[in-house]
């Protein structure tokens, strides 16, 4: 395990600037999640570290060593791809043993066998070792793919949305398993996703990518409660953060220059009142909680409410801000 550093790295594909000037350090033993929408440069960043792409500018250092010009095989990284992750012509066992049998390593057969069986147990696939890799369910395939990375002890594990092709239940299961495994072996891990739940639950630190730039990096708590700008604030939180103009709602104390106020559920206070400043427009019942759609003048807000809150459609309420997030005209956070 080792530290991985990106210094001012950029990469363009033709006209498209996929990654621009990203600097990032993944510390030894850190679980860093890069969060961003499709096309924000997450995958390209991983591929640059793995050596599958050549940066236009900037440096990649693994364990303090500049790896420019090194082939992927000699960089000592492991990669879990989003799909097509298993060699279809090999069995589960052979897939897991494949990295260990490589010319770069050539471990003795006994050691390979021991490692494969140990990892198979870790990712809970040891009962299907002799199966053809194409004869597995989606969840099993991804477990094998993760296992194939884990049989090695590389400087860093790179994972490119490894859970995105799975259904919600499996995703939740594997999320926990992955975190458990990472805790067990204390690995350095750079994980890419567009799923904020994965980012919030697994990461030691989250990096928010937007249009090829690293917008902010910090602990999940920091990113959530202290976003640097509107974009970062909009990436996290369910329901989506409400962006309303300054002065629409009472409460809070907006600093000078505030243009937009970001209000999540915890920033909104609801009091039932005959002549409130807002009206309940719609209620979505999710079971354990409700989504309240609220109209304030022309503006619509969405917030969570517990199911016992006695309001109905058309009721008027008093809506107040409580320590919301303030942003200037450029979308930068004001404090």
């Amino acid at each position, binding site marked *: 395990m080792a530290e991985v550093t990106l210094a001012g790295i950029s990469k363009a594909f033709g006209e498209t600037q996929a990654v621009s000037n990203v600097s990032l350090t993944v510390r030894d033993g850190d679980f860093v999640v890069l969060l961003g929408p499709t096309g924000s440069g997450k995958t390209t960043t991983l591929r640059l570290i*793995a*050596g*599958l792409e050549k940066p236009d500018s900037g440096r990649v250092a693994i364990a303090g060593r500049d790896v420019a010009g090194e*082939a*992927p*095989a000699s*960089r000592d*990284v*492991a*990669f879990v*791809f989003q*799909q*097509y*992750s298993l*060699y*279809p*012509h090999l069995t589960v066992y052979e897939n897991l043993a*494949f*990295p260990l049998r*490589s*010319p*770069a*390593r050539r471990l003795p057969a006994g050691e390979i066998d021991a490692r494969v069986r140990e990892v198979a147990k870790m990712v809970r696939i040891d009962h299907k070792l002799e199966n053809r890799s194409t004869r597995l369910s989606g969840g099993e395939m991804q477990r094998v793919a993760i296992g*194939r990375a884990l049989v*090695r002890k590389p400087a860093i594990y790179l994972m490119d949305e490894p859970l995105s092709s799975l259904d919600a239940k499996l995703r939740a299961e594997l999320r926990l398993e992955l975190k458990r495994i990472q805790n067990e072996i204390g690995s350095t891990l750079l994980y890419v996703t567009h799923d904020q739940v994965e980012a919030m639950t697994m990461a030691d630190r989250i990096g928010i990518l937007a249009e090829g730039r690293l917008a902010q990096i910090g602990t999940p708590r920091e990113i959530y409660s202290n976003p640097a700008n509107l974009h970062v604030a909009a990436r996290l939180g369910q329901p989506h953060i409400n962006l309303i103009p300054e002065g629409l709602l009472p409460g809070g104390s907006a600093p000078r220059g505030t243009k937009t106020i970001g209000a999540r559920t915890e920033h909104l206070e609801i009091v039932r009142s005959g002549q409130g400043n807002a009206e309940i427009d719609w209620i979505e019942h999710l079971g354990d909680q409700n989504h309240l759609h609220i109209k304030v003048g022309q503006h619509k807000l969405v917030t969570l409410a517990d199911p016992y809150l006695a309001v109905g459609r058309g009721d008027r309420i008093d809506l107040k801000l409580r320590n919301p997030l303030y942003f200037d005209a450029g979308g930068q956070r004001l404090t």
Partner: protein
Amino acid sequence: MSNATSAHSVVEPSATTKRIAGIIVVLYAIVTMVPLAWIFMTSFKSPPDSISYPPKLVFTPTLEGYCNLFTTRTRQTPEYIQSLGPPQSTCDEITRSRNMVIAGPSNYWPRFTNSMVIAFGSTFLAVFLGTLAAYGFSRFRVPLADDLLFFILSTRMMPPIAVAIPIYLMYRELGLSDTALGMILLYTAVNVSLAVWLLKGFIDEIPREYEEAAMIDGYTRLQAFRKVVLPQATTGIAATAIFCLIFAWNEYAFAVLLTSGSAQTAPPFIPTIIGEGGMDWPAVAAGTTIFLVPILVFTILLRKQLLRGITFGAVRK
């Protein structure tokens, strides 16, 4: 799904449709099989039976065609034949019954061997070169790739007869006429275009993530190609090999123009088998029958891959 064959399925053809389609396929198969059956039967007829009219469907089978195919014979007086000892073999016996003796082996076997060497040699080369070229075109940004691919394909557009004369002159200068090497090179050149195009399609279908994964797992690109791409491309390679082999095996125009002696292949040789008083049809039919065997065996061995090759990847693995 599992009950797709149910009567109410909208995508599955009904039982009647299937039966009619089956009958059409069987009829078509019979029509295409008739010439083959005819050749096979003729190869076991005696020369008079082979040209009798109306054609005989029931006849006494004889190995005379096969004996004549593999031997040259000379006519002798009955007295001379009487003076010989007992016949050495069935063929000897048949030949003597026609007042002839076996003078020696015919050229059929050497010609057949030439066909084997040239067809399999050129197929191997074409598929080998084609695989590498197709991989290159599929995975790397080759400058002018589209033009190059079209150029490669364009070598197939001219009929052999159009280029036969220049190639003949060229080969004479280079000392390649009537050599197995010359024919291997020529068939390789013709087949490599087919191989590149077919194989590029197959290799394009293999996601490059597999190789990337292998390269990260500690393999070089070449090792990844061998360990990961080749095993997955075997279907395509097999299908391509069959197409190349069938072309090289059956090729007639170049063979007739460029080979006459030591490197002659079977196709130009078979029609030259002449018996006493005209064509020896049973011998010609016997030569054709044996000539069909290698392709038949090869095709049966690789029939699954061939089906997939014909449908050009439309059938998912």
